[in-house]
């Protein structure tokens, strides 16, 4: 390592190698028998969680709203993805991780985007 690298504050352990992780995850998902959109949705969510450090339950409400905002284009355009998104939201609600208000907000986000188009 160069002296600069040693002295710098960046830690290589914090690196997120997005591409490699996505490929690895995809390979594992291939074996599981999901549909294409489900796989895509799963990958999207995992990337989002890793990147934005969603760590605990308390983050979930914020996280799902942010996730919706971030990917609203894809959810609006693809009906299959939209369905996965909806089902996952219900799933999270069942776990007690999402509040109904969050769900309403998320739908509102999508609706807003749709109207803008």
């Amino acid at each position, binding site marked *: 390592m160069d002296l600069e690298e040693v002295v710098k504050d960046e830690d290589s352990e914090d690196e997120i190698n997005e591409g490699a992780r996505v490929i690895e995850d995809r390979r594992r998902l291939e074996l599981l028998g999901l549909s294409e959109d489900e796989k895509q949705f799963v990958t999207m969510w995992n990337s989002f969680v890793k990147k934005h450090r969603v760590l605990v339950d308390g*983050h979930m409400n914020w996280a799902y709203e942010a996730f919706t905002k971030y990917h609203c284009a894809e959810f609006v355009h693809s009906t299959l993805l939209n369905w996965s998104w909806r089902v996952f939201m*219900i799933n999270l609600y069942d*776990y007690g991780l999402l509040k109904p208000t969050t769900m309403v907000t998320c739908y509102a986000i999508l609706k807003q985007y749709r109207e803008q188009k």
Partner: protein
Amino acid sequence: MRKQLGEAANDALGTLSLKINQLKKQIQAERIVYIKEKIQSNEKKLQCHTSGVLSAITTRGFSQTEGNRKTPILSRIDCPLCKFNGFSPVSGDKDHNNQDVLSATSIKIPYIERLPPYTSWIFLDRNQRMADDQSVVGRRRIYYDQHGSEALICSDSEEELTEHEEEKHEFSEAEDRVLWMAFEEYGLNEEVLNIVSEFVGGTSSEIQERYKSIKEKNIGRLDQDQPSENSGDLESIIGISPEKTLSAALDSFDNLFCRRCLIFDCRLHGCSQPLVYPSEKQTIWSDPEGDKKPCSDQCYLQLNEVKGVSEDATSGSDQNKRTTTMEETDGILAPSTIEEPGNQSTSPFPTEVDCHRSLNLNVPISVSVEKRKVINVSDTALCDSTPPPDGSQNSNKKLKTISDDVITVNSDSSNNLLGACDESKHTITCAILDKSVKHNSNKLIDSSSTCDTDEQDKNIGDGPKDPTNKTEFKKLSSSMEGKVDGMPGLSDWKPLEKELYLKGVEMFGRNSCLIARNLLSGLKTCMEIATYMHAGGLSMPHGSIIAPSSIMDDKGKFDAEYTDQEMPSRSRLLRKRGKTRKFKYSWKSTGHPSIWKRIADGKNQSCKQYTPCGCQSMCGKECTCVNGGTCCEKYCGNLGVIWIGGFVQKAAKIDSEDAIVPRVSAEVDNVLVLLQDGNVTQMFVGIAGLGHPSLCPLSHLSPVPTTTPTGAWQCLMTDNPVLSCGDGSLGEPPRRGEGQCGNMRLLLRQQQRILLAKSDVAGWGAFLKNPVNKNDYLGEYTGELISHREADKRGKIYDRANSSFLFDLNDQYVLDAYRKGDKLKFANHSSNPNCYAKVMLVAGDHRVGIFAKEHIDASEELFYDYRYGPDQAPPWARKPEGSKSDESTVCQGRAKKHQSH
């Protein structure tokens, strides 16, 4: 007879063998043809590639001369640049002339120490479970013996020889065809099997299985040819087959989603974790202002603006009352079952607010009101453009009056009655007529004004109102008799839609606007949902439209049912209170013998691996958490409580029973509100007293309202700097916003920067870049989670190489950092270390953290005590005499290197 049959059968089977032979030959012939064709086509393909090269060769071949054929090296062999002959110095005296030896000046090459051997390893930021194919059990392993410097196969007498598995027979395509033909024509019986197995390899069971799988494949193919008809419409909207139920769709996500790590396909906890749903979900959705706009042009609230104006004028005082009730319900996010038992008939039904205005109605009454309205709607819906008969309008008025009465009665009697109905919704549904809109609305305004005065009159007393209301109901019901019509379009609700509707009701209450917008968007309109709801959907236990006279029975039943439902919970509440009075939780709690014993022992007992228990109400004898001595975490089923370390301690100190607060999801304000609520709500059996590391209240985390959460996360419940929850060093009860629980540092990965370099003692070592103070968190020792058995096997090889990456985690797992881990695996052992390792329970997972034992300067190497048992340590780890014992870590067991047994 039998003989004949037998002969016939034999004949048949004889022909079977013939047929199989024929088929075989046919297949072989086909194969030959196929191969031939393949070769020919390959030849053609090759030609285009090789033609260029061949032509080049032929052209060049003629221009070569003899001399050029020799390669440069061969040509030089006779006249080298320099010749060097060696001569032994012994015979030097005689043959001076022949000494061609050039005296070579020798240089002493400085001795440089070898670099330690590199290993390739995979970086893990979280522990990972070992995949099954990574196991060393049953495999022959090769290791490199340092002394002999050769590769040896490790074989132990203890090692069990795994059975050589019979190789599964792989069925080729030809065999598949044979199978298919044979079984299709001759059936699946033993004789056929025998004959077939002569031709085809594999055991008879394998053959049978194969046949079945072929059959399924073929059937599947047939099915695909016939597409389903009615899915087209729905499919285009949401993209899936509506025949699929919601639960099936949820299933696929359920399998994958890891509730603890919040990602899919978690590599730490694996897939298909047993589902543990919280026993109390967030069902309260409150929206005091309400959305007064109609949600769409299909919404039944279309005429809202006309009505809304009038209502504003008339119901000023009521609004105040309503908003106060709403505020109360806002402040108490916990379900109503937790409130004082003095609350009569607390409905377990979730708080519901309609999107128009907040009104609290007892559900049973609302249901019956709705029913009558339903009847009205069907009437009016049928006669679209014609103005409604006066009769129905009058009944509108009457109904509104009555429902208003009902409202006031209920809001008077108990403010906390949580059950709403869309009262105004009903008035408007009555008015769903395009043309006669204004006409209706005027009438409605009138009725609302009248009802207002009515309300004020009736505000005085509530008790005696009930019977009068009931009689009025009965009057109405009689007038409504015979007007029951079939509801349009109830039957074309697909099961999926019905399930979504139910979900919507669970979440939002009987609020068709919300349900339409959110769950059923694209599938059903608000109007359709409203009508479905009024028709009694599926959410009502006594569902269908029945004769109005029996509606009162229903009401009675409803009441009974609701009270039944909440009676047990109330009694549970009482029982729990009793328990809390008995035990005063303190450090020396005797309430939970199993855990206390462990603490008292103080030995190196490894703690149990945590898995969420599925207890729904209270952790009883079957609770895995209780039996295992692990504390319930927020993933467990019974989520009435969260444990807050400091808070419990406070309770113990002041000897009150105020201790536990219901679980909340994370909004900061709500946490505070709940803290101030002094009532005990529930308590776990399984949770020990204070000091358990799992008391880290991670469930409180909520983002500071900025865009990203990083860096601003804080454990809201801790105050003074503590090592970690459950360390024993908790002082004052925590206030929010300051300090941080030690476990948080692992969760948030607030580690130090570690550098790798050649160690001062052996091999590679880990060094610190920045100075740290005592008890600072340095990093997490990550690795593969392997079983103890696996660890023993791997350990044998590691020990031979004098390196050890195994770390005892708990009774179920060992961490192995040999193949996967992070930089801290390079930290060496020392009997006089400057760091220590500690197994911590962070959000239900055991993790190993490395902490500084004293102040460490930058660029110093990190050492910690591997904590081998006295007789187990390898020679380099033997302590000199007079070792000091480290402080014990409560209940967690000492972090120590794993020893193979």
